């Protein structure tokens, strides 16, 4: 169980690193589009590609953010609950999130599959096949679903390891 947990946590962190590399790539793409404009070179679909890079970057970071308690929730009621009551609420929240994240992953995968089947192309200047950027997004949402279901199972079988009353994560980075 612990070995599996550690292995999966490495996968989520790898997702975050990939997301970070894509963020740097996004910045480089935007700078390139500015330079191209100043120099009078045609930058092609740089703006469309920037959007795809951002989407992939976002989805790749969802699971890491979730595992490090980075997503926002309303804590007003649950923050005062301890022990068993808190556990019931956690199981309910994780159960709902599991269902929704699996649903999301399923339909993001279907979106990519449909684009592949119908050979849909982007409407922008790049006109690339849409399944190319949609596939990594589907992978990212699958990773998110995996992280949530993983946490849900931990809460069912080994609640101590996910007990929010005992964890010392930094919490969401509110703005």
């Amino acid at each position, binding site marked *: 169980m612990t070995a599996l947990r550690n292995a999966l946590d490495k996968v989520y962190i790898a997702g*975050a*690193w990939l*997301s*970070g590399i894509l*963020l*740097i790539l*996004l*910045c480089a793409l*935007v*700078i390139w*589009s*500015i330079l191209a404009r100043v120099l009078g070179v045609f930058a092609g679909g740089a*703006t*469309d590609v*920037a*959007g*795809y890079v*951002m*989407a992939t*970057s*976002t*989805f*790749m*970071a*969802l699971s*890491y*953010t*979730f595992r*490090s308690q*980075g*997503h*926002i*929730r*309303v*804590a*007003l*009621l*649950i923050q005062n609950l301890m022990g068993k009551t808190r556990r019931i*609420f956690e199981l*309910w*929240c994780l159960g*709902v*999130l599991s*269902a*929704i994240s699996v*649903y*999301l992953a*399923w*339909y*993001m995968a*279907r*979106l990519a599959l*449909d684009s592949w089947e119908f050979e849909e192309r982007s409407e922008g200047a790049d006109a690339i096949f849409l399944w190319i*950027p*949609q596939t990594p*997004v589907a992978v990212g949402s699958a990773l998110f679903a995996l992280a949530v279901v993983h946490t849900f199972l931990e809460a069912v079988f080994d609640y101590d390891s996910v007990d929010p009353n005992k964890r010392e994560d930094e919490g*969401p*980075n*509110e*703005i």
Partner: protein
Amino acid sequence: MTETLSIVIFLGTLFVLLGTGVWVGAALLGTAILGMALFTSAPIGDSMAVTIWGEQSSWTLTALPLFIWMGEILFRTKLSETLFRGLAPFMRRLPGGLLHVNIGASAIFAAISGSSAATVATVGKMSIPELTERKYPDRMIIGTLSGAGTLGLLIPPSISMIVFGVTVNESIAKLFMAAMIPGICLALLFMLYVAGWSIVNKGRIPKADDLIGENKLKRLIDLLPVLLLIGFVIGSIYAGFATATEAAALGVVGSLLLSLAQRSLSWDSFIQSVLGAVRTTAMIMLILMGSGFLSLAMGFTGIPKALAEGISDWQLSPIMLIVILTVFYILLGCFLDGLSSIVLTMAVIEPMVRAAGFDILWFGVYLMIVVEMAQITPPIGFNLFVLQGMTGKDMAFISRASLPMFGVMCVFIVILVLVPELATWLPEVLSK
């Protein structure tokens, strides 16, 4: 009747999911899925995927991760020190003395960072120990910081302004233009309050005579890189040279250069800034996915249309509407963080606000201020949490200290309603 019942189930689900602590993004997605099932026969999952894909891969939204990253880089520089040392010699003689540094430094940092929590943390890092050591009253140190920190979301660039712009489909560049003058005015109003307070409470503001010999010119030169960065980022948008996204990318490069020049950029801090940025981005994007799909579902429920028509039927005066909305947002802020309250309400409130004849740029500025007012009032107020962590004072003290600033912001809302040109003038002039 069944229609009414459906709406009750729909809204009830939203409240239950949010209230029981389901992550906000998922709560919105779940409610939207249910709403689609109740009110349409459209394929739910597929419309969800298309909506999310369209929003999450849009060019407009790319400004968001880049501005977040820029803030993460600057947060790790020695900027707090530079700002304090640079501004202190100039503020020394004003009534209220170095308290003005809190406000001035917040305003300057707000012009390169889009986050109010980061503004409070950065400015406070230097000024809390300095001002405490100089025996300034705690209550005023904390009050000015938490109040002026709110400028982080008002003075462009601003993360919540980008989120607002994406949600209501308005140009982010124009929103950034609209917010500048109100931001400066609010900062001046804070300073006016501090000056007034210190004239009334004579003798409670210590003198800062040790700063007399300071070489002002040298301090000004220290501030120059920051001011250049502001001019670079904001200026390029205002001059029409760059879109918000392009300005953000330039800002990232600029802040990397700045921290290199300060020798505060290490490989480690660079990695931390990137990971911090993707973490914050993922958090905001999950909420945006939820709200994007919820807006679609909300449209089918007919609630926004009914409310917009209701507003015109009730003959509410615009002033009355603004009073109601202000109270509503401050109450909402007792449960929700600022970002969630913006995205959650806009689907319903946008048609109403447009029907009532408000300029949407003006409304964006107004919304930033009320949401920030909610952020400096308990029980949930992120600026208060940040200050609690930094000063170790209890929540009640910090909230009381912030109360006068809350009052100043109320006064500013009245001014903004009376003189809407504060927000609408600059976008008009610059767009010509």
